[in-house]
């Protein structure tokens, strides 16, 4: 088997495994995995900008929330059905990330972090400011009757799992294809040395712009699906915490790896869930685990595999 075929087999294998797992998992973990796949999609989106392009954003909650509210508000106040509402959510994410990219890409490094952070914070406050429509921090429920997509009731566990799997699969394949394409390789080159890429005649600004819009759009799709599948939209998803989560997941799993975002999300979810079953001081365990992991797996979990075993893992 060629290296390329092995890589594709590995990644598609994960999707097949995830698809098959729904038949054997007990109910609780079945539900968890559906949730993890949607959150991992968010991390996949984040990874495109952070892991491959080298731009550390602290404002991705803005895109996640744009998707969630673009979907939720049109259902709640304009009577949209899920399909058009999802499209509105995803478009909202594309639009917001494009607009923010135009401003934020004038900066680099830590300034980029702060600019994205500030605009996301303004977005969070805007959700609160328009509390009349968004119900602010309390948020609102997307009722079961409003969550029927093409006759499929998304509040049903099996349907939800399948929807989450489909979303994750699409974003995962897009991500794999993207980073193996010339465009993706240019992004990696920009991450490594932007000056040199520019001198080679590439328009690095356009590349970064495109990366940010793709990243924001995938994040928004995750936000829109999250709201639709779990029936709730609230301001906490727009808070700074939800900008830091994908960064954490990606770093844990391995920045700049296609598998990393999923592995990191899975790891963090069960780290909290299992340790909270053992002790009420589960954050202590989570904190220690993070510290130890950075000490002993500096590249993240998948990053370590790439460093030690499988050198050409994308």
């Amino acid at each position, binding site marked *: 088997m060629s290296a390329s075929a092995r890589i594709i087999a590995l990644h598609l294998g994960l999707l097949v495994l995830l698809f098959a797992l729904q038949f054997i998992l007990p109910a609780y973990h079945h539900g968890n995995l559906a949730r993890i796949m949607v959150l991992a999609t968010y991390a996949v989106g984040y990874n495109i900008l952070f892991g491959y392009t080298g731009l550390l954003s602290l404002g991705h909650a803005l895109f996640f929330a744009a998707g969630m509210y673009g979907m939720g508000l049109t259902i709640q106040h304009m009577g949209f059905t899920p399909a058009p509402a999802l499209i509105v959510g995803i478009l909202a994410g594309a639009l917001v990330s494009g607009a923010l990219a135009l401003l*934020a890409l004038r*900066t680099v490094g*830590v300034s980029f972090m702060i600019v994205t952070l*500030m605009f996301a914070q303004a977005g969070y406050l805007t959700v609160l400011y328009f509390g009349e429509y968004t119900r602010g921090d309390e948020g609102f429920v997307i009722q079961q009757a409003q969550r029927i997509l093409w006759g499929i009731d998304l509040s049903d566990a099996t349907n939800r799992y399948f929807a989450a799997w489909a979303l994750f699969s699409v974003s995962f394949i897009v991500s794999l294809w993207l980073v193996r394409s010339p465009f993706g390789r240019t992004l990696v080159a920009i991450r490594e040395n932007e000056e040199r890429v520019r001198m080679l005649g590439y328009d690095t600004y356009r590349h970064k712009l495109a990366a940010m819009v793709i990243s924001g759009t995938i994040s928004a799709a995750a936000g829109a699906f999250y709201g639709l599948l779990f029936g709730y939209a609230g301001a906490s998803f727009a808070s700074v915490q939800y900008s830091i989560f994908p960064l954490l997941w990606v770093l844990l799993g391995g920045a700049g790896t296609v598998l990393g975002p999923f592995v990191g999300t899975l790891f963090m979810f069960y780290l909290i869930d299992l340790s909270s079953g053992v002790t009420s001081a589960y954050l*202590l365990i989570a*904190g220690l685990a993070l510290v130890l992991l950075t000490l002993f797996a500096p590249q993240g979990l998948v990053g370590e595999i790439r460093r030690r075993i499988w050198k050409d893992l994308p």
Partner: protein
Amino acid sequence: MEFGPHLLLATLEGAVTAAVLALTAVGLSLVFGVMRVVNIAHGEFYMLGAVIAWYVAHMMGGHPALGFFAALVLAPLLVGAIAVLADITILKRLDYDPERTIVATIGLLYIIQQLTLMTYGPEARPVEAPFNTRIALPWFEWGEDGFQFYYPWGLSTTSYKLAVIGAAAAVLLGVWAMMARTKIGLLMRATQADRDMALAFGIPVERVYALVFGIGAALAALGAVLIVPIQQAHYLMGADPLLLAFIVVIIGGLGSLPGTVLAALFIGLSDGIISVFFSPTLAKILATLLVGLVLVWRPQGLFGTRTA
């Protein structure tokens, strides 16, 4: 309230915010400037300062000033020691890699928060100010009898708030003197300017790093001790100062001490003054966007010289 007195009040309030913010941010600026790492746990050092202040004040008893001044000395020392320990056991082993430091300090944040919750508890607890007199402030107007002073309703501050501004200014001067006039300041500046060169000249960079991390945390703790008679010690109080301090450091321009102080003034005052003109949440939105746009317009920060 009329416009003039309202503006004065908002400015005074902004100045108090700015004073404490400056201390916290200068601490972060040292760490960020010299060590080039983002310390997400910086806000937790701030929180620890406030919590230790409560413990010290609680155990001292007697006049509130006794406990407060004891806390002013003990809290920064203890927090600084904890930070040095964290630097030696964790950050040094990470080789100060920027990304790994972020994850490790997030881990540190969880640990510190949870330990505080388990020992100190979830309540917000007050520390009594050493002195706290309400001072009504006068305003002037040109009435029928010409120029005259009067005391508008609600226009006031407290002696303690004024003292906080003074104390912060004094500490900042001290930090500046340390950086500019002492040998240790020279070592720090040399390490900041060029780490490899500093190593080559035999500067014990690792020890400088540990010291910087400790001083940075101690400054945050000092800011917290000053604020805790106004606000209260609570185990989640670190999040806001972390974000604000981080913003101030970048707006001020990396590694520029005067820039950091001016940026703290800019952020503290604009937050207060914008609130005069708009409804509160809208004012917050505008103040936040303003900070973002300043950086879009000057990516190196207001007073930065090199690109970040």
